[in-house]
């Protein structure tokens, strides 16, 4: 977990250590005349993609997008969800019923579909009067809309009476942590489908999608598929384990 964070922050340094080029630099020599990318070699430990870009370098830089969207998205979703839930807990009974129905409605739409809708609606020119700009902010916005309902429900159930203030904060912290892996997976799925973070930015979901197209067209490059997928799965797993560990620690 810590390792991933360090890699993400120090991405340029990491690529320097491995002696590979930047994530958007193309090496024409690494792609054959027919456009077939070359596999792992000394110069490119993870191989290159169809445009001759170094995959190790793109995997390393992709961690920045994953962490940014995952952590920021989960944090904002928790703050908004917590605020909505706590505010609703002061409302009269009929008001609470409306909020619960509204949360049911938000949670009814599958997150991926909601994300695609937001990605398309905001991806071209931004939305909400420019607060949500195209690119990463759109992906974060999608994560927030898809995730805040879960947190709001928990906050509403606990309420904000003085004697439960500490358990409330603990539970919100835990649910924020549990949102992180879900947010990273959602962001990757959106990237895979082609909304959210846009090319040429290195992003794991997009890398997997483009490797999939290469494989389907017969330019089989397992390296383009395996490495970003492992990075994604490893990152998600690390955050899942962290969330579980902390949950266990605070519940005993």
């Amino acid at each position, binding site marked *: 977990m810590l390792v991933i964070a360090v890699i993400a922050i120090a991405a340029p340094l990491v690529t320097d250590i491995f002696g590979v080029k930047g994530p958007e630099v193309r090496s024409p020599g690494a792609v054959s005349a027919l456009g077939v990318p070359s596999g792992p070699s000394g110069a490119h430990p993870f191989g290159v993609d169809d445009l001759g870009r170094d995959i190790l370098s793109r995997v390393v830089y992709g961690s920045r997008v994953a962490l940014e969207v995952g952590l920021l998205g989960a944090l904002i979703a928790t703050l908004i969800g917590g605020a909505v839930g706590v505010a609703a807990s002061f409302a009269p009974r009929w008001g609470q019923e409306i909020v619960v129905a509204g949360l049911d409605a938000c949670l009814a739409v599958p997150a991926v579909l909601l994300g695609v809708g937001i990605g398309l609606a905001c991806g071209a020119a931004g939305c909400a009067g420019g607060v949500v700009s195209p690119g990463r902010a759109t992906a974060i916005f999608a994560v927030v809309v898809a995730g805040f309902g879960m947190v709001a429900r928990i906050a509403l159930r606990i309420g904000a009476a003085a004697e439960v203030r500490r358990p409330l904060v603990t539970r919100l912290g835990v649910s924020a942590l549990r949102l992180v892996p879900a947010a990273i997976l959602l962001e990757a799925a959106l990237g895979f489908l082609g909304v959210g973070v846009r090319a040429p930015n290195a992003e794991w979901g997009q890398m*997997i999608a483009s490797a999939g197209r290469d494989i389907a067209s017969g330019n089989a490059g397992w390296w383009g*598929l395996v490495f970003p997928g492992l990075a994604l799965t*490893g990152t998600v797993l690390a955050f899942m384990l962290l969330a579980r560990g902390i949950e266990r620690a605070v519940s005993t």
Partner: protein
Amino acid sequence: MTLRRYLIRRVPRAALALVLVVLIAYLLFGVLPRTGGASLSGYLKAIFVDSYRGRGSVPSLIVGRVPATLSLVLGALVMWVVVAVPIAIAAAVRRGTSFDRAVAGSMLALGAAPAFWLGLLGLYLFASTVGQFPFLPGQGAYVGLTADPGKWFTSLIMPWLAMALTQGAMASVMLRRELTELSQRDYVVAASAKGLPHRTVVWRHAARAAAAPTLKVLGIELGALIGAAVVVEAAFSINGVGLLVYRSIRHDNLVIVEGTVVMAGLLMVLVRLALDVIRALVDPRVRTT
């Protein structure tokens, strides 16, 4: 609380949620992105009634593709219920043993993997077109159940596995949490103490108590399963609702995506209501919450 009183509380909430699905979609897609924005009635007409570029209304475009998506989701669901639920129950009963820990660990690792990645790995390894060990149909091999049942089945094996292994694992992690205290419940302990064989304890006593939590997890997980269907259909070129969404992204057809979002939301509200009612029938304790 009686079942009737539970329904009196639960049904109006679902009805309100149906209205709010439409309103929230209108706010998110009709108002927020544009300055000015369409009127609510104009918005509803665009996504429900108007013919989209001469190809028919959005609902008719979606309905024609539901069978493929349904095959995918239901098949993955059957795989999950038949394989993963018994494993999760068995692990919960033997909590703390090495079997439980091994199950929990592998479920967590699989749940961390995205379905589209596992699907593409499967294609790379086993697809008859481009696979290294070709023996299963690859991309675009899907045919309808009525057209050719055999082909329908074989073309869906890999997509089903991709969904069941990832989303199913995620659901099993949740189910295991729900069943946490199962092995310590009095009647399970009593059944074991009576000297009943382990199998009887699991299936007669623990499995019944697990039914309601399973339905609860199912309600939560169904949305994620539909989301997984979108990416898996894109990966395998299965002509379902997900591929329609995927193509709409390519062509920037926001209206079709909006229609899908609203229809999926409405459907999920109804499905969750149905699951909650079944849950309340199976397990009276549910009615009090």
